[in-house]
């Protein structure tokens, strides 16, 4: 019997090499950084999908999030990258881990047929659509080697948040949303089980 776990990790290694190679081939040494980040993103996502244990999946998501942060930094958006690490890796992931630890492990839940089938269908479908789209759509874009140096600093983003003609309204709305969501989360999580079980009985059959 082939050890599926070993096959999967070998596949991941091959993917990593392929991505690094692609980066190196298309942009030289600078492309290696891209390859590394892409490896983190896609590898993390694949592991998350693959692993039986929810804890492992959750931790592998950390790689995805960190890879995304790397992308942001590569794209000159330092502040967004830092925010990604702080909020996603530090906050959201921690929250998800709480959820994971409060629910029981269910090792029989992953069905290989479903995962494999899903990957196959989705992979083929997305690849086909992407190829068609890439062939037919011409994006207005600057070539990679002619990009100007990233101009936006964290300070600009801070000003954009509070400047009346830019993002102050969405910013305030986001603040209100967060407050409401957190209060609601606390409220929902604090409800007792009796609150729920009482309801179906009262609901008059």
């Amino acid at each position, binding site marked *: 019997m082939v050890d599926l776990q070993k096959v999967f990790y070998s596949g991941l290694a091959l993917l990593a090499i392929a991505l690094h190679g*692609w*980066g190196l081939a*298309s*942009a030289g040494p600078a492309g290696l950084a891209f390859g590394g980040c*892409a490896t983190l*993103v*896609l590898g993390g*996502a694949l592991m*998350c*999908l693959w692993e039986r244990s929810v804890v492992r*999946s*959750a931790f592998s*998501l950390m790689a*995805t*999030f960190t890879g*995304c942060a790397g*992308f942001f930094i*590569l*794209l000159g*958006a330092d*502040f*967004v990258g830092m925010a*990604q690490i702080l*909020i*996603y890796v530090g906050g959201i992931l921690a*929250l*998800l881990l709480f*959820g994971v630890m409060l*629910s*029981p492990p*269910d090792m029989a*839940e*992953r*069905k290989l047929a479903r*995962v494999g*089938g*899903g*990957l196959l269908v*989705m992979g083929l479908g*997305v690849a086909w659509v*992407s190829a068609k789209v*890439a062939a037919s759509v011409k994006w207005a*874009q*600057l070539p*990679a080697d002619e*990009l100007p140096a*990233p*101009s*936006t600093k964290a300070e600009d*983003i801070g000003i*954009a948040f509070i400047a009346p003609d830019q993002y102050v309204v969405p910013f305030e709305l*986001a603040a209100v*949303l*967060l407050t409401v969501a957190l209060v609601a*989360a*606390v409220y929902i*999580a604090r409800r007792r*089980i009796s609150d729920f*079980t009482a309801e*179906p009985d009262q609901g008059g059959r």
Partner: protein
Amino acid sequence: MALGAYVAVSAALFALGLVTIAARRNILYVLFGIEMILNAANINFVAFNRFNGDGMDGRMFAIFVIILAAAEAAVALAIVLNVYHLFGSTKPSDADLLRE
């Protein structure tokens, strides 16, 4: 790297997120999938922003998406906890009171 590379990785991540939602039978994986999809969208925002004049809008959108994701994760986890308390399971298919 060119824009196409970022978009390709983003598309792949998006696809993986969808598969995660569809293929795993645990409500937590649905959350994981959603987070992946949001991140894929964020990569697109930032990449298109960078390759189209390096303005500010794409980044701001990315930041707002992150904020939304935080709010969503908090509420969703509270719901997950309650569902687990009530049904003793984290499978969404077990929460089926309305179906009867």
